[in-house]
C-alpha cells in the first residue's frame, strides 16, 4: 500500500533520513521507534507529503506521492495526526469534526448553504465524536479542552476523513500513563469502525509499542536498523540495547 523506496532527506549538510526503504501493507499496525534525532518525524513528514525527499520516492497505492503535499494525500486517503497537538483553537469540537466531514464529502466550498442544515455532516461529526468519547464536549472550543482530549480530537478529526491509512506522530506523548492505554484502545476500536486499513505510528512508550504493533521498525541515525514483528525485535540485541533500552530476549 505505502512504499517508501530508498528515501533520503537532507537539510543542507545534515542528513536526517539516509536511505530508508519501507513497505506497509494493508492490515498492518506498524510502530516506528528510535531515539530522538533518528529521523522519525522527518520520515513521517516525507511519507505524508509534507516534505519532498532529497532522493528516493514514496508510492501510495501505485501513485508516486513524493512531495505531493498533504492536501493531495488527504484526498487520496491518507491522514495524519501531529506530535505537537494541532487544534483549531477557536472552533468547537463539533465544528472541527464537521469541517473534516465537509472536506471529505467535498462540500467545503459551499458558500450559501447553511452549515447547520447539513444533516449528514452533523451526524458524521456526532458519530466520530462518540467513537472517541468526545460526545459530551461537542460545544466546547478546542483550545479549552484538556490536553488528552485535544490529542484525541487531533486524531478524531483525521479519522473523520475515513482514510485508508493513517500516520500518528506520537499519539500518546504528553499524556498521563493512565490515559495512554485509554487512548490506544479508543484508537484501535475506532479504526476498525472507520475501516482504516493500516496504521503507522511513531511512539516512544515501549509498552504501547509492544502491546499494539504487528510490526516494529527501528530507526537509528536515519537508517532502518531492524524491521520485524515484536517477537523478532525482542531478540534483536542491537535494537533492544541501543533503542529500547532493555535486555534482549534470548531464544530458548
Amino acid at each position: 500500500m505505502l512504499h517508501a523506496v530508498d528515501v533520503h532527506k537532507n537539510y543542507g549538510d545534515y542528513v536526517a533520513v539516509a536511505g530508508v526503504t519501507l513497505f506497509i501493507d494493508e492490515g498492518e499496525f506498524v510502530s516506528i521507534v528510535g531515539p530522538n534525532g533518528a529521523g522519525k518525524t522527518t520520515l513521517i513528514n516525507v511519507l505524508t507529503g509534507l516534505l519532498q525527499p532529497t532522493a528516493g520516492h514514496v508510492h501510495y497505492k501505485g501513485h508516486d506521492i513524493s512531495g505531493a503535499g498533504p492536501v493531495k494525500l488527504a484526498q487520496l486517503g491518507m491522514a495524519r495526526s501531529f506530535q505537537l497537538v494541532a487544534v483549531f483553537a477557536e472552533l468547537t469540537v463539533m465544528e472541527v469534526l464537521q469541517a473534516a466531514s465537509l472536506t471529505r464529502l467535498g462540500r467545503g466550498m459551499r458558500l450559501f448553504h447553511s452549515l447547520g442544515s447539513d444533516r449528514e455532516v452533523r451526524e458524521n461529526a456526532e458519530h466520530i465524536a462518540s467513537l472517541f468519547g468526545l460526545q459530551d464536549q461537542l460545544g466546547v472550543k478546542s483550545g479549552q479542552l484538556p490536553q488528552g482530549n485535544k490529542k484525541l480530537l487531533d486524531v478524531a478529526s483525521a479519522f473523520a476523513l475515513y482514510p485508508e491509512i493513517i500516520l500518528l506522530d506520537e499519539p500518546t506523548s504528553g499524556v498521563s500513563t493512565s490515559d495512554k492505554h485509554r487512548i490506544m484502545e479508543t484508537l484501535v476500536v475506532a479504526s476498525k469502525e472507520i475501516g482504516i486499513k493500516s496504521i503507522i505510528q511513531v511512539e516512544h512508550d515501549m509498552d504501547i509499542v509492544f502491546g499494539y504493533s504487528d510490526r516494529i521498525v527501528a530507526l537509528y541515525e536515519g537508517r532502518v536498523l531492524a524491521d520485524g514483528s515484536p517477537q523478532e525485535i525482542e531478540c534483536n540485541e542491537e535494537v533492544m540495547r541501543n533503542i529500547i533500552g532493555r535486555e534482549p530476549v534470548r531464544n530458548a
Partner: protein
Amino acid sequence: MSTPTERTTGSTEVKHPDGKGIGLWLKLALVLLGIVLLALLPQVLSRYYIILMMPFFAYSIALLGLNLLFGYTGLISFGHALFIGVGAYSAAFLMRDGGLEYMEPLILLSLLGAVIVAVPVGLLAVRYIGIYFGLLTLAFGMLFYSFLLKFYSITSGDQGIRVEKPILLGFIDTTGIDYLTGPFYYYCLGLLVVMALVMWRIVKSPFGLTLRCVRDNSVKAESLGIGVYRYRFYAFLISAIYGGVAGVILAVSVGQVDPTMSYWTSSGNLVFMTLLGGFTSFFGPIVGAGAFILLQDQVMSLWEYWRLVFGAILALIVIFAPSGLMGLLTMGWKKVVR
C-alpha cells in the same frame, strides 16, 4: 515566529468570548431594531448628519469584506483601500467616459473591476501570511495610488474626477428632490442590509467554517485536505467585491474620487475601524465604522488634532481591548446577565 509562508504557532491569541453570547433571538431583534432605527434617521437627523451616514454605509460594507479576511481567515490586509479605489474610479470612468447613468450596472461593472484587480493580486498575496501579507497588500495599494496620482492624463491626478449622481432603480434621479438624503440614503441602507445578509450566509456556511480552520491552523487544515491557498483566494475575492461596492457608494456620495482613497493610511484606518468595532464579532465592523465616523466628526469639530486622539484610542484598544467594542459589550452583557 512566522516565516513568510507558513505559521508555526496556532491561532490568534485573543480569547474570543466563550460560552453562549447574546442569545440568537435577541440578536435578531437587535438587528431588526437597528435597521428600523437606521431607516428612521433621516426623519430626525439634520442634513449634515444624514450625509455623514454615507461613508458609514460605505465603510460598513467595505469592512464586512475586510473582516472576512481578517477575523475569519486570519489575514491582515493593509491594502483594502485598493479595492475601494478601484470601485470608485471604475464608477467615475464608467460615468465620465462610458456615459453610464444607471446605478445598478455601475455597481456590477465596478464590482467586476474589483474582481479583475483582485485575481492577480490575490493569487500572489495569499501565498504569504502575517506581516508579509500585510506588506504585500500595502505595496499593491500604494502601486494603485501612485498610478492614480501620476497618470494625470487618465486619472486627472490629485484633482480627481467628478462623479455625477446615477439614476437609481431605473427611474430615481436628482430632479426635484434631495437625492442624497432621500432615495440614495435608503438605497445605501438597502445595499448594506443585502450585503450583510449575503456575508452572514457566507460566514455561516461550510465555506466560512473551512476559512476558520485555515485561520486557526493552516498546517492542520492542509492535513485534512483543505486547500489553504484556494480558500484564502476566494476570501480575498469576496473582500475585494465588498471593497468595490463601498467605493462606488463613496464616489457617488462625495461626488468626487481622488487618489487618497487608496493611500496606505486609508487602509490603515479601515483596519482601525475593524479593530475598534471588534473583529471577533460579525457586526463588529459595522459598529466600528459607525463609531469611527461619529468619533471623527465630533473630535474634528472640537480639536484639529484628531489623529492624536485616534492614535491614542487605537493604542488603547490594541493593548487593552483587542476584541473591540463588541468584545467589551459582550463581556459587559455577561456580567449583567449573571
